[in-house]
């Protein structure tokens, strides 16, 4: 297994584990939380975990394609947050309710 000395010298594995942790917490937030807006925050965490891993690979293999892709992921994530919140606000204004369990009863 990995002996202790290599744990101190920060290598690719450390960054991957951090990105994975963020990804897992984001996924858990989406699954466990009832409030729709907090679920959108979970999606943001997810995408940030992916960004960290992309940047780690781009740094350790010194290719800049990783950075360019993170640049695009950032754009899509921000746009997605905007749309998600616009919908959440419209639903909240209509039904005065943000909990996800309420939306099973929507029909049509």
């Amino acid at each position, binding site marked *: *297994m*990995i002996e202790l000395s290599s744990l*101190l*010298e*920060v290598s690719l*594995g450390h960054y*991957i*584990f*951090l990105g*994975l*942790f*963020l990804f*897992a*917490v*984001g*996924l*858990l*937030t989406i*699954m*466990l*939380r*009832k*409030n729709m*807006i*907090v679920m959108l*925050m*979970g999606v*943001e*965490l997810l995408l*940030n975990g992916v*960004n960290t891993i992309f*940047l*780690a690979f781009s*740094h*350790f*293999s*010194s290719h800049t394609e990783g*950075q*360019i892709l*993170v*640049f*695009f992921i*950032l*754009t*899509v994530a*921000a*746009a997605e*947050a*905007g*749309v998600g*919140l*616009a*919908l959440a*606000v*419209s639903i*909240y*204004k*209509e039904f005065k309710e*943000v909990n996800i*369990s309420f939306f099973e009863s929507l029909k049509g």
Partner: protein
Amino acid sequence: MANNPIVFFPLAFVIAVAALGVLLASNPIFSALFLVLSMVCLGFMFLAMGAFFLGGVQLAVYAGAVTVLFVMVLMLFDLKDNANPIAKGLLSRFLKVSSIGVFVGLITGAVSLTKYYPVPVKAADPSSMESTRVLAVGLFRDYVFAFEILGVLLLVIAIGVVSVSRIKGGTHDRA
């Protein structure tokens, strides 16, 4: 510079705690503020990793724009501090958490077994514009088309968001 542990471990610890804070905070506004903290620390980590322009963009766009929208919407709608933020149902919770655990275990196992441990060629000098210039020139040599598509995507979303708010009963309904 990227892999000196004095920089990596404290930042990683704060990011992990803030991410857990987003999950566990009962008041949505506190989970939004934890998200801000994790974004800012991630921005600093990107700076440490040598991706300077992206660290700045992370600070400006993510921590300074997206999460401001989250905090603003939560404040606009005075969402009360709901008592049990986590979904009910012990079995369903257990299933969700265990599935995520298996997922994490699989990936950690896969990563620790690989032999591919590249060492960075040279640490980017923080005060030079070199890495940003390489990123910028590369962005326009091979990815111009993707760049234009993103412009169209942002236009479509700008129009979509306004029209969503304009439907009957919407916040900006003209009636």
